Structure formats: C-alpha cells, structure tokens
C-alpha cells in the first residue's frame, strides 16, 4: 500500500507539473501584449511595465520564477480588480463553490442511489422505467440548459425560489438541483445494475430463505455491497461538478470560483483564468487520488498486489 501511495503521489506531482508548464508555455504563445492598454503606451512605458512584471527576462528564467511562485501559492495578480492577488480572489470565493458542490454531490448521490435501488427492486415496472428515463434525461440534457429552464420556470414564472444571488438556504435550492442532475443520473444507473446483480446472488437468496424481511435484505445485505463500486464513479463526477459549477454559478449569479472564471474569460484576464485553471486541475488530481485510496481501503478485493497489511 505504501509503495502504491508513493507511486500515485509521484504521478500526481508529474501531472501537476505538466499542467503548470503547459499553462506557462501556452501563455507565452498567446499573441498580443498582456497589458490591456498596450497600444496607448510608448516604448519607454512598455519597457517599464515589462520590467515590473519580469517580462524582460529570458523565457527560461521567467519559467523558473513562475514555478517558484506557484509552489508558494502565488498565482499572479488579477488585472481586473486593481492587481489583487489571484490567490486572495479565489480564497474568498471558495466557500460558495464548495458548498454548492457538496450540496449537489450529497443530494444527487442520495436521490440517485435511492432511485437506483428502487428501480432494481421493482424491475420492469413503471417505477423502473421512470427512474431509467430520469437517468437518461439527467445524463443527456446539458446542465446549463437545465439550470436555465429551472430558473425560468421555478424562479421567474412561478416565483417559488429567488432568481439570483447567494444569500441564504432558499437561494441554494435551484442551483443545487441543477448541478445534482448529473451525479443523480450516474448514481441511479450504476446502482440499478449493481443491485440487480447482487439481488440474484446466493447470499441474498440465503437471507431470503432464512426469512429476513424484504427491507432488511434490500438495505442491510444488498445495498452495502452495491455501494462499493459506486465510489469508482466519484472521480468522473467531480470533474462534471467542476464543469457544471462554471455555468450554474454564472446562471444563478453565485459568487463562487466558477462565476469568477467565466467573468474573467469575458474580460480576458489571463492571470485569473490560468490561476483558476491550475486550482481546478490540482483539486481534480487530489480528489482522484483520494478516491483511488478510499476504494482500496473499503474493498479488500482490489487492494493493490503486494500490499499485505
């Protein structure tokens, strides 16, 4: 296990290094000046600006400096907010994003798992078809379409929920539902197949034969084992939540990282775009690592070879 861990962490570092380097060199390839008012500046002013931001040095020197800054958590400054450090900007906006992501993940997976279990227990009934249909819809309809429609019907037309902003629990309802559709769909589908397979296995028949009641069999014996493989989809789900949070935050005006990101794209604030991109990449890589380790800990069958405890 320790060897495996070291290997995985090593890969994680390499991946992050590659993403950071790619970011740096692609930035260098972007045509044009990083200064918004470049054509109003004279050559002398440009020189001063270049010197101030270290752009007059050779690219390798800049690269090393950039990596050094990154390690220290310095992501540069955001031009659109009077040179506020990007890291400060992101830290202040982390709260709503995390809350939204967690809420969506928890809501989506609980409802999804329940739907999947019910569908498996009532195979080929209208409940089953209904939940399968919901899963297909949830997986197929783009989340920004879904979020837009939710906002239009439930906030604008019916007025049940606030339309915009992030000021209290009632503000979180629609964004959470919009973002949770994908985890819900994936969890429901996965759970259904997993449960159907487990319900036909011998130990379930035995439990039934011993006279355990229906709910005990379903929730005590089958559900526990069916839950193990669901952890494998947590990785892709995290990625989908990140993509989703960009648009959902933008649509509902939530002051999170995603909204900042979309706004920065609109005003071409490259430092913020790159910084956020790196934060997303780091988050993703770390979560994948945690998921993999969790999986090994929970399910002894797939404990890595050689990892005797």
């Amino acid at each position: 296990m320790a060897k495996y861990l070291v290997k995985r962490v090593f890969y994680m570092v390499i991946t992050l290094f590659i993403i950071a380097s790619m970011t740096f060199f692609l930035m260098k390839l972007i045509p044009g000046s990083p200064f918004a008012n470049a054509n109003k500046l004279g050559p002398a002013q440009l020189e001063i600006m270049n010197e101030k931001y270290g752009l007059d040095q050779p690219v390798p020197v800049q690269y090393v400096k950039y990596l050094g800054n990154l390690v220290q958590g310095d992501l540069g400054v955001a031009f659109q907010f009077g040179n506020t450090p990007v890291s400060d900007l992101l830290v202040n906006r982390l709260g709503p994003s995390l809350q939204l992501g967690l809420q969506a993940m928890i809501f989506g997976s609980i409802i999804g798992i329940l739907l999947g279990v019910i569908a498996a227990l009532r195979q080929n009934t209208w409940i089953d078809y209904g939940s399968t249909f919901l899963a297909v819809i949830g997986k197929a309809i783009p989340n920004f379409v879904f979020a837009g429609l939710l906002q239009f019907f439930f906030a604008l037309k019916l007025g049940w929920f606030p339309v915009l902003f992030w000021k209290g629990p009632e503000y979180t309802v629609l964004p959470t539902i919009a973002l949770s559709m994908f985890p819900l769909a994936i969890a429901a589908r996965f759970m259904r197949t997993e449960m159907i397979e487990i319900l036909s296995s011998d130990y379930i028949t035995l439990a039934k034969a011993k006279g355990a009641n229906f709910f005990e069999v379903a929730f005590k014996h089958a559900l526990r084992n069916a839950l193990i493989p669901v952890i494998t989809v947590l990785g892709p789900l995290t990625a989908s939540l990140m993509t989703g949070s960009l648009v959902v935050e933008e649509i509902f005006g939530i002051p999170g990282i995603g909204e900042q990101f979309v706004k920065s794209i609109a005003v071409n604030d490259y430092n913020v775009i790159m910084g956020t991109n790196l934060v997303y990449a780091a988050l993703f890589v770390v979560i994948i690592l945690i998921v993999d380790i969790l999986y090994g800990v929970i399910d002894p069958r797939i404990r890595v070879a050689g990892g005797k405890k």
Partner: protein
Amino acid sequence: MAQNNEKIAAEKFAPAIIDSAKSEEINKPSLSFWQDSWMRVRKNKAAVASLVIMMFMIILAFLGPVISGKDSEAQNVTQNNLPPKVQGLENVSWLPFDGTKTLPNGKEVDYYKQKNVDEDEYYWFGTDALGRDLFTRVWEGTQVSLYIAFLAALIDLVVGVTYGAVSGYYGGRLDNTMQRIAEVLMGIPTLVVVILMILVLEPGIVSIAVAMSVTGWVGMSRVIRAQVLKLKEQEFILASRTLGNSNTKIISKHLLPNLAGVIIINTMFSIPNAIFFEAFLSFIGLGLQPPDASLGTLIDDGFKVLRLHPHEMIIPAIVISIIMVSFNMLADGLRDALDPKMRD
C-alpha cells in the same frame, strides 16, 4: 378431444429416421457478427426509436435551412424577437405557435400585428434579436454542432485506435512508456486543457474539435489496448504470424476488424460528449464567434433574453436535448448489442 384424434392420418405416426450424419445439421442460416448485432439492436425499442429520431434530426439539419426559404444571416431589425408562428397550428389555442406572446403584466399581444409583419409571413421558430429567422439558424447551428462533434470523434478515433493498438500490440518497454504518458494525460481534466487550448488557438470549428481531442483520445486508446492485449494471444494471430504476415498487416487485417465493436461503442459515446462540450464552451464565452453559430451559441444568445423572449433559448435547448438523448440511448443500445459484456 375425441373428434380431433380421428382427423390425424395414420401415416403421420411413422418413426423418425435417426441419422447420425444429419443430427448436427445446422438448419438456421448462420449469422455474421453484424447481422447478429443488428438483430439485437432492433429488439431494443428505445435504440430503434432514437435511431429514427436521430436520422430525422440530421435530415432536418440539412433540409431545414432549404425549406425555410430564408437566409440565416439576413437581418431585419423591424421584425426582431418575433415569437413562433406556424401555418395551421396557429389556430390551435393551446399550442404556442400563434405568434402571440404574454407580457409579464399578463397581457397577450400579437407581435406579428404589432410589428406590421405580412399576414402570410411565417417564422416557424420566431426570430432573434436581429430579426434573423430562428428556424434557419437552429438547423444551421445543428449542422455546425454535429460537424464539430463528428470531427472531434474522428480525431479521437484515429489517434486513440492507433495509440492503443501500437501500445498493446508491441508491448514491452514501448507499451510501458506509452501507458505512463497516457496515465498522466488521464489525470488532466478535459475542462482545463480545452480552456487552455481555446485561449491559444482562435476559437473556430476546427480548433474547438482539436482542443477537445487533446486528451479525448486517451479513453479510446485504453479500451483498444486492453482488447489488443487479449486478442494478440489468440490462435488466429499466431497462425497469421506463422504464415509470415507483417505486424502492420496483422494489426490492420486481423486486429482492427475485431475491434470494430468497441470502436463504434466508444465513438458513439464521444459524439454526444463533444456536442455537450462545444455547447458548454459557447455558453461560457469560449465557443464560436459570430457570424458562426452553433446550438451552443444560440442557447447562449437566447439565455440573455430568456425573460422577455423565452422561445429564443427554449427552442435550441429542446433541439440539443433531443439530439443528446437520442445519441445517448442509441449508444447504450449499441453497447448492449455489440458487446454485452461491457454493460454496466
């Protein structure tokens, strides 16, 4: 019962001839892999329905701009933001195709009269903020979205299959190195790479497809590699090698045909993914630039005026949802038919 017994002729009770030579005769026509798969796809009603719907959407995407008789670029600001109006359906009161719109204060207004549009002028999906015909624009946008998706899927296919086949077939140190590279690429979230690439490349049809393929092919290559590892140990490959065939020929003649199933399944899943990602990029402002339009940019434009003119977002949203659902269902059906083991 008794009456029935009398009608059966006595010669029908002759003993059957037992011939060991004929007992193993095959009396059903033998089915090739594809015939068998097609039979299984046909049994799946959802997959057949999605296939029909998908065909219908693709045909409409190409036919729509022609039958509307309008130009997608022609602006007519005096006739902007018109709601949908369709011949015949305009008299059905519960359908929203009568050219009227309910204002936020509850009043119903006939926009076509208000804007002095000719009696016999019909905009089936209404018009957008610049007075362009939305019907034409939606189907042209569908063409663009499908084009980007197919292009991205094709790049994924070519790169992924080649990489996976080479890595799996040659094995050893080469495989090891290639897999380590793939592993690192797998760890990079698509979103991050695509956004980086789009910032550097000018947003356009090809650059969006390329950006999506930078890491998109890894999934395909892994599936292909696993299949190749399994297949290359089988006897028919050994036979081919013994007969002196070159590696290239073995890969192309023997391995690839056997991989067709997984390739199709994977491609079918990557197409809706690409459609989604393109629309997503447009929505966050990194997609196609005007005058190019895709379903994503149409939804983005429509979203800005959602409150006043909901049809401008809802129509392209419905179109993209139908396409996504039908592609996903068909992909599921194909997976079950072509490779029942991959069911999850």
